[in-house]
């Protein structure tokens, strides 16, 4: 009775909260970016133009490990492919065409897709998508700059454990994706394959090679859906 759009208010609140939380960890991206050898401008350009956290972390992670920028970009691109999947799900919910669709595309990320996906009508989905995507974009970029400026003042990143922070950041991004046992198997095999390849291949290659584990897993026939899987 109190509000004509209770759903929409909840979506806005959720979107702003997600934006704040995600934006704050932009600080860690900024700091790690400059300590991986990028300039402040390059670190900020990643957040502005790539704007999908896992791909950005992958790019700087490969660079920090001594890999070439191109293998970093290839890893980042493969991680960015999940945004295509989100877009496919969002298309009927957002129902935008033309320049609106072209503009909205830049905001298609984990967080905006998750919030918009909970809406039940097109107007609600659009509000949830724009509030979340906009809040994350503004704060992620602002905090990247803050982190990058702080990072340049730090000196050796190892003293502050920033090298350990990168691994933890990837784990935190991975964690919510490990709900079902087939995902956990893919993760374990991919991690093992990457470690086996570390001594044998140039930096950056082990991670790229691990993508093959996902393709093999996807090609295996007769996988039960996670909801029907009884194995643990």
């Amino acid at each position: 009775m109190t509000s004509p759009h209770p759903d929409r208010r909840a979506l806005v609140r959720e979107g702003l909260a997600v934006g704040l939380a995600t934006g704050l960890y932009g600080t860690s991206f900024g700091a790690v970016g400059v300590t991986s050898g990028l300039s402040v401008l390059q670190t900020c350009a990643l957040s502005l133009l790539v704007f999908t956290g896992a791909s950005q972390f992958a790019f700087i992670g490969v660079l920090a490990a001594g890999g070439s920028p191109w293998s970093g970009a290839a890893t980042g691109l493969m991680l960015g492919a999940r945004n295509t999947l989100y877009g496919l799900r969002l298309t009927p919910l957002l129902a935008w065409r033309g320049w609106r669709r072209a503009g909205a595309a830049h905001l298609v990320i984990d967080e905006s897709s998750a919030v918009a996906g909970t809406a039940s009508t097109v107007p609600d989905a659009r509000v949830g998508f724009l509030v979340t995507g906009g809040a994350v974009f503004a704060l992620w970029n602002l905090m990247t700059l803050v982190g990058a400026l702080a990072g340049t003042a730090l000196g050796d990143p190892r003293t502050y454990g920033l090298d350990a922070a990168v691994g933890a950041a990837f784990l935190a991004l991975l964690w919510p994706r490990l709900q079902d046992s087939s995902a956990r198997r893919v993760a374990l095999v991919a991690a093992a394959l990457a470690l086996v390849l570390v001594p044998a291949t140039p930096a950056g290659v082990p991670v790229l090679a691990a993508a093959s584990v996902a393709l093999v897993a996807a090609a295996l026939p007769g996988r039960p859906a996670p909801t029907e899987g009884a194995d643990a």
Partner: protein
Amino acid sequence: MTTTWAALLALAAGCYLLKLAGLSLPTGVLERPFVRRAALALPVALLAALVAVQTAADGSSVVVDARAAGLAVAVVALLLRANFLVVVVLAAATAALLRLVTG
């Protein structure tokens, strides 16, 4: 430096086109089981490999050092449902502290 910029801009263009493709392709693409399973499994495999390499690779050798301790603390924090920033800061603090203590 120029190579880094070129790769960075290529990544930006590619990531944007991947997002736009999702909003532009016919929805039926998602219904192909292989596409769906691959799109879900790809980030899992890549992120797991990145965790492993970031934590245990030192140049071309595999080592267990302060980063592994940081990752172990991150696992505990995640099990306790800590948020992203807390997980990252705790991992960094653990590795930094361990290095401070062990010299």
